[in-house]
């Protein structure tokens, strides 16, 4: 099997100058033991007797001595984690009063606009939590807002991991666990907002009922199995309840613990920076610094969520009224994480439904629900393995990539997000229409076209942006940053003074790999006689994908290039006394602008970059 070779990154001797790094804890020892802080840290005496009976001290020493790097984007996952904790706490409170039953009652609580109205016990108890139980409404709103923050946190955390390449070896399994967690979060959220049995949530359950019914052949049986008979029946709320409070949370918490363990066992990733390599971690140990920061951040998340819950209404079930299959309200949307599926239903044309062998095939629903929902998470789950296969990269990675340094991945990710956003916005087409004064029909047509066209545009724009940023980085490394000071030499020539980067600034700009397409490293597809070498179909596909990913890649500045650029600059400075004089006058070392030496050297040297 051929593997992609990597452009040599022998810049270590240049980078070696600044390995002192920042004034933070830097430990450089072999991987998997390299992220431990002070080994001689003293623990309180009470640990002794406990350790004698449990042997936990070693694990604690390992855990508490872990070094975590500092970056705000590493806290996005913590937003999700803390929101989940808030959901667990507030959810426990809500179970003390919520009655998961579709038994019929007549409301006799304090909310006048529903007095005497027939409803399910689930809805009546939700009204009681909102209006009779002290602090109940705040708890409900905390639970719902925290659930939204949970999903937003997961989405942003996943995006961070994706765009920085943190899913690469050895973290593919943890990525898959994270993908499953995000799926569970969406299901958990759906089950949760379906429980109050208000008009909006009942409409959501009706949509789910339709999703299941669109399954070819078995659809009807499937819905009767899940609903215990014809919709709505009296089973679905109790069943969703046990899924919401026991089944899914148990799996969610279990997988979350696994997710955490797989974060702690290998060292944490860090962004490229001075002194940061694949063999170390630059950051703070858990005890005491990181624990204080992370613990403090929990209170920040809890505080903001509580503030939002106290000030902003969410899911006012009393406004929607009790669920009644004969009713529906305008502006019925699920919570935002299910929008893309609902939006797909709004975009799919009705003629996709047909009758075959006496059975109705509702492809207009099936494609946007039973196919799309698993497909999205499946693609997310297999992406790391797909990229590893294309790249042929089997090395461990602990330094993150800047998104621009993986242009095709970044472009694919952004294109996928744009596709997702089109579907999601299609789900609120009615609200967009009324708020923007547009026709809902025009919006539907626009979204249908955008779904196919926008990702292509986004892909090319983002890829070009990444490549431009990479070129800009090269430019900066080779020639320094522009100072804005234009110097005129005594003979009347002008040049702009460029300030070379110091080693600290240079490090993150040169510390990355640039894989080359397989075709370039294992030779062309045909030998010297023009005979095609036999390739398996998979290998051919791999070769094509590799070329798609890496044919345009721009490599980092190599030490040789850097040395050449510097030497070139010095050489010129010595060569031209007037330039040297100008430098002296302005007191700054100079690496000249490319345009300038283009003029001066002309044919003699040409452009050196």
């Amino acid at each position, binding site marked *: 099997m051929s593997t992609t070779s990597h452009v040599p990154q022998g810049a270590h001797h240049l980078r070696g100058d600044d390995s002192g790094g920042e004034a933070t804890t830097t430990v450089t020892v072999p991987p998997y033991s390299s992220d431990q802080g002070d080994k001689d840290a003293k623990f309180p005496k009470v640990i002794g007797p406990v350790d004698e009976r449990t042997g936990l001290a070693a694990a604690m020493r390992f855990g508490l001595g872990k070094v975590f790097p500092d970056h705000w984007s590493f806290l996005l996952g913590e*937003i999700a984690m803390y929101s989940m904790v808030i959901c667990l706490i507030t959810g426990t409170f809500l179970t003390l009063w919520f009655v998961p039953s579709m038994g019929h009652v007549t409301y006799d609580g304090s909310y*006048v*606009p529903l007095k005497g109205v027939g409803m399910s016990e689930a809805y009546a108890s939700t009204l009681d939590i909102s209006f009779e139980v002290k602090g109940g409404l705040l708890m409900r709103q905390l639970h719902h807002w925290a659930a939204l923050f949970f999903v937003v946190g997961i989405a942003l955390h996943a995006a961070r991991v994706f765009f920085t390449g943190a899913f690469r070896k050895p973290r593919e399994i943890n990525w898959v666990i994270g993908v499953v967690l995000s799926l569970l979060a969406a299901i958990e959220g759906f089950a949760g907002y379906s429980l109050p049995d208000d008009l909006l949530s009942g409409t959501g359950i009706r949509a789910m009922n339709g999703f299941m019914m669109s399954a070819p052949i078995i659809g009807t049986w499937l819905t009767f199995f899940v609903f215990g008979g014809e919709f709505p029946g009296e089973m679905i709320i109790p069943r969703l309840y046990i899924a919401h409070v026991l089944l899914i949370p148990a799996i969610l918490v279990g997988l979350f613990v696994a997710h955490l363990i797989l974060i702690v066992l290998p060292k944490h990733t860090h962004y490229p920076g001075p002194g940061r390599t694949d063999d170390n971690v630059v950051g703070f140990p858990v005890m005491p610094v990181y624990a204080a920061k992370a613990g403090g951040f929990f209170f*920040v998340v809890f505080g903001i969520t509580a503030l939002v819950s106290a000030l902003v209404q969410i899911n006012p079930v009393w406004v929607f009224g009790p669920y009644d299959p004969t*009713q*529906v309200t*305008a502006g019925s949307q699920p919570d935002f994480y299910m929008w893309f599926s609902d939006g797909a239903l709004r975009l799919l044309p009705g003629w996709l439904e047909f009758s075959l062998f006496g059975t109705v095939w509702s492809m207009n629903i099936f494609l946007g629900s039973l196919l799309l929902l698993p497909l999205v998470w499946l693609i997310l789950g297999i992406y790391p393995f797909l990229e590893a296969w294309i790249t042929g990269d089997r090395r461990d990675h602990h330094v993150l990539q800047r998104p621009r340094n993986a242009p095709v991945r970044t472009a694919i990710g952004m294109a996928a997000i744009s596709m997702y956003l089109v579907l999601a916005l299609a789900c*609120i087409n009615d609200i967009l*229409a009324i708020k923007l004064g547009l026709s809902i029909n025009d919006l539907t047509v626009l979204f249908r076209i955008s779904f196919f066209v926008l990702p292509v545009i986004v892909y090319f724009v983002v890829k070009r942006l990444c490549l431009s940023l990479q070129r800009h980085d090269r430019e900066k490394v080779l020639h320094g940053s522009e100072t804005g000071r234009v110097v005129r030499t005594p003979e009347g020539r002008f040049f702009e003074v460029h300030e070379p980067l110091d080693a600290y600034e240079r490090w993150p700009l040169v510390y990355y790999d640039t894989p080359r397409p397989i075709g370039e490293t294992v030779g062309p597809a045909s030998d010297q006689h023009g005979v095609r070498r036999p390739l398996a179909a998979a290998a051919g596909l791999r070769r094509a994908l590799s070329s798609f990913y890496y044919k345009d890649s721009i490599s980092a500045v190599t030490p040789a290039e850097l040395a050449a650029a510097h030497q070139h600059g010095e050489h010129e400075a010595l060569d031209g006394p007037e330039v040297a004089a100008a430098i002296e006058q302005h007191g700054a070392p100079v690496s000249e602008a490319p345009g300038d030496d283009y003029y001066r050297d002309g044919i003699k040297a040409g452009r050196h970059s």
Partner: protein
Amino acid sequence: MSDVAPDSPHHPIRKDRRVSSPAALRRSPLALLVVLFLGLCFTGTAYAALQPAVPPGTSSSTVSPEDIEAGKQLFLGNCATCHGTNGQGVDPIGPSLVGVGAASVDFQVSTGRMPLPAPQVQADRNASQVQFSEEQITQLAGYIDSLGPGPDVPAEEWLDLENADIAAGGASYRTNCAMCHNSSGTGGALTRGKYAPTLMGVEAQHIYEAMVTGPQSMPVFNDQNLPPQEKENIIAFLKNIEEGGNSYGGAGIGSYGPAGDALFVWTIGIGSLIALAVWIGRKAA
């Protein structure tokens, strides 16, 4: 403190009686008259300001022949271009008005929808565009009703919201109205740029008239499928929302359900958390 009875002459507050303090003035016999006067003035002004253009119960039979004739002149001068000189309609720009009734005229004209300022997808409610005085609208309504009988302007007894059942109105509202106007009465989108307008801030008489006449895309809810008492209940339910009867739990972000929540959580919500994450990430040990 003192345990002297409040009405005893030795009570500390009673001592101030001869001083004309605000408390003493409040007890003056004149105060009642002043309050009564102010109350009447306020009620009268509010009634004049909020009074519907056409008095309840108006139809061609309650309007004098002279007013109907005056209404005809108004019609010829302002409406006939689109609705035809005899109200028979001009295809395709204006529908026939024979049989639309006084209620329809009052609804369309006194909400500022008609005369239509320009051809558009649907006529918008616009209080600043009401072109006619109350008297003129009554005359117009009488004239149109005389072309062919239609729904009358509703009687006062269905608009005073006495004996109305808010909860029953809510149930009728959710069955008949919420699919277009939203469960909180804030409106919703229809096809091709049309929309069901918000019901907040609409006068009871106009809501009733809309139900009996079915303006624009709206279906007609006649007295057979929605008896007058149910209409009154629905209006009472909407007025209850308008007065804040369902606003609990904080600011409502436009009553647009999960769309508003999503907008909030993805902007202000996560924005503030990220700002604080950046702050914590930067904070030196």
